[in-house]
């Protein structure tokens, strides 16, 4: 992908004005992770009511790709049932921004927030549900995302 393809209007807009950016003080679950080599760092807070992600916010530091993908991801997840959120795939996020062919070194920027979201759900479900097999799958998925 050339820069013209990557740095299109939507990416720049999202990076300048991220959606769902901030903290949820009375969150039900929060998770933090970073990419050790580049220093991108994302926290996701979620409020969960009746098995639904009633509110979700992210904060942290990252490049335009990271910020745009975090915005899109939180938009996708907000209001959805936990089971749907669990199944959000990398292409759901990348596709939304036309980043399916992003080069390998930047994939981690794009998917950091999805990784954080999956770990956050894993930690929430681990505390609240009995179905541990399903939960472990989520952890594995998060660990192997990129």
């Amino acid at each position, binding site marked *: 992908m050339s*820069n013209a393809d990557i740095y299109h209007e939507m990416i720049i807009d999202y990076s*300048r004005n991220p959606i769902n950016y901030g903290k949820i003080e009375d969150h039900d679950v929060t998770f933090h992770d970073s990419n050790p*080599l*580049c*220093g991108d760092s994302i926290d996701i807070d979620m409020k969960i009511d009746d098995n639904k992600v009633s509110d979700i916010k992210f904060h942290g*530091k990252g490049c335009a790709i990271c910020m745009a993908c975090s915005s899109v991801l939180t938009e996708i997840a907000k209001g959805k049932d936990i089971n749907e959120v669990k199944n959000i795939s990398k292409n759901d996020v990348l596709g939304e921004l036309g980043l399916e062919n992003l080069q390998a070194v930047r994939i981690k920027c794009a998917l950091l927030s999805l990784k954080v979201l999956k770990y956050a759900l894993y930690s929430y479900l681990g505390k609240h549900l009995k179905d541990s097999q399903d939960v472990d799958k989520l952890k594995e998925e998060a660990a192997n995302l990129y």
Partner: protein
Amino acid sequence: MQSAQTSFENIRKDFPILERTVRENKTLVYLDNASTTQKPNQVIDAINDYYRNHNANIHRAVYALAEEATELYEQTRDKVANFINVKNRDEIIFVRGTTEAINLVAYSWGREHVKEGDVIVTTEYEHHSNIVPWQLLTQEKGAKIEYIGMDDNGELILDDLDKYLATGKVKLVTFSLMSNVLGTISDADTIISKCKKAGVLTLIDGAQAVPHMKVDLEKLGCDFFAFSGHKMLGPTGIGILWVKKSVLETMNPFHGGGDMIREVHKYETTWNDLPYKFEAGTPNIADVVGLGAAIDYLSKIGMENIRQHEIDLTTYAIEKLSHVKGLHIYGTKDISKRGGVISFNFADVHPHDVAQIIDEEGIAVRSGHHCAQVLMERLNVAATSRASFYIYNTKEEVDKLINSLNKVAEVFKL
């Protein structure tokens, strides 16, 4: 200075990689020299020649090849001693790089001499390799690590050092001679003289300084000195640790194995002489030979000329960059106090995005925390972009960097 000018123009011809193009047929503009430098034919050929004509294990066998290999290997030790002005070649230890050198000191010296309640002093602008080994040591020993702070100009606050030394608990003060992020040249003379008065040992991380300026260990008077070959035109995987003999003699081995022993019995071993006591196993012979060729190459140009070339280039670059709207340069503008390393941020654009967009123009700069997260915290930024120069860089390349930043401004509508 007509001749010096000409010789710097000819230098590029020695570096085959500088002729290649990247991305869409763009000439490579390599500005990541603080990370690693490119290699001249002279270094590549020396390694090639070693493997083609002289390869054998060193120090023991009596046949001709082994003798040649040993001689080539030991010649580099003499070249290093001469290059950094050390009288005693036995104080020079070959290691993998600066990181291994500092870990060796933390392990072999630290475990012997650092006790509970002791303090190791480092600085806010250190590379992780001069922080983490000391964290490991102090955590193990119940000792403490303290930081000399940095002012807004990117210079060390030496009052902090006085404060720590006054406690009488400091065992070692360790600092880089040149910051890998800001290019700041530390006031080593003052630091070392303060430490000497307090009877405290000093370690200098010379990874960024040795490739770019004349370094004279006799004059500096520190106790430990470390640097890497690959940042000074040499190969990766080879570096130098120098330790003052009186200190080296108080240290236990780092690794046990072949070459570092005198006699091995079932339950006891006696150590080989210095420096071999600290060079266990078959060393990186070919790259030691390559480092020797790099030292020859740099010596021929002259370290004073190299420093002058980088002063000219850095002055030019800072002047040009400071006219780019929205661009912030970190560190001092006083060229006598900085090397050819320029860290910057461009408006609200993340350094990764800057690096990616200018990469399309063939320009290689580093973006990220530069293995200096403590410094990033101090500067209150997640990351910076960093351009760093060496002997083969030109003002035309600085112009290309400036032009490419205009592309960034365009994309991000600055």
